[in-house]
């Protein structure tokens, strides 16, 4: 996974998450740029590179699936839920008080 790909994914994710909200979108672009520019002189074999790229990818997927825009419409807010928004089915509620480790070994439901 290269840094350039992470950069592209992050830029695209920002575009999906903040579509139509130019102020936030510009701020997001600016902050992504700043983050990458700060580390642009780090050598490619530096041990901090891989975690930094993984972090960027995680932020990208978070922006894409866990950020939803809301617009106030009178008393209520209209949410713009798009095709990449994560929709949980709350199946874990059936497991009671067990602690669930996400992505862990514990199998849940039909998985």
């Amino acid at each position, binding site marked *: 996974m290269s840094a*350039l*790909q992470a*950069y592209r994914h992050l*830029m*695209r994710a920002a575009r999906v998450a903040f579509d139509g909200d130019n102020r936030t979108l510009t701020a997001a672009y600016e902050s992504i*740029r700043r983050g990458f520019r700060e580390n*642009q002189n780090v050598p490619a074999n530096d041990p901090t590179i891989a975690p930094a790229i993984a972090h960027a990818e995680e932020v990208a997927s978070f922006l894409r699936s866990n950020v939803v825009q809301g617009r106030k419409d009178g008393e209520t807010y209209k949410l713009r839920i798009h095709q990449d928004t994560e929709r949980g089915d709350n199946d874990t509620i059936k497991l009671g008080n067990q602690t669930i480790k996400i992505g862990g070994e514990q199998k849940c439901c039909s998985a």
Partner: protein
Amino acid sequence: MFRTAALTAARVARPAVASAVRAGVARPAFVQAVPKVAAFQAVRFYSAGGHLKKDEVFSRIAQVLSGFDKVNDPKNITETAHFANDLGLDSLDTVEVVMAIEEEFSIEIPDKDADQIHSVDKAVEYILSQPDAN
């Protein structure tokens, strides 16, 4: 049923128009102004070749680049300009340029293709090979 209704309407309408002409009343200009062929071509079909011309693609890409403030000199934007060697952009800028080009032609370039685009002619070539680009 619709056909008979239309025919009746036409039959009723014709004498009215004819009498209007006879009486010297100018018919609405647009009726005469649109020749048959032009009226037909005004409708665009899905099958119509919406292909982009090479010059048009280049001029739109050049426009995208000239709006990009990191390009060292707008005069360097030529059909064969290399993003890094001729325009002074680094790899992060190149990613942004490619994304701006995507937006301009409303397509999404997959990662593996986007990584290959390093010059204006490559970008033009890629856009021309995409039937969805517009």
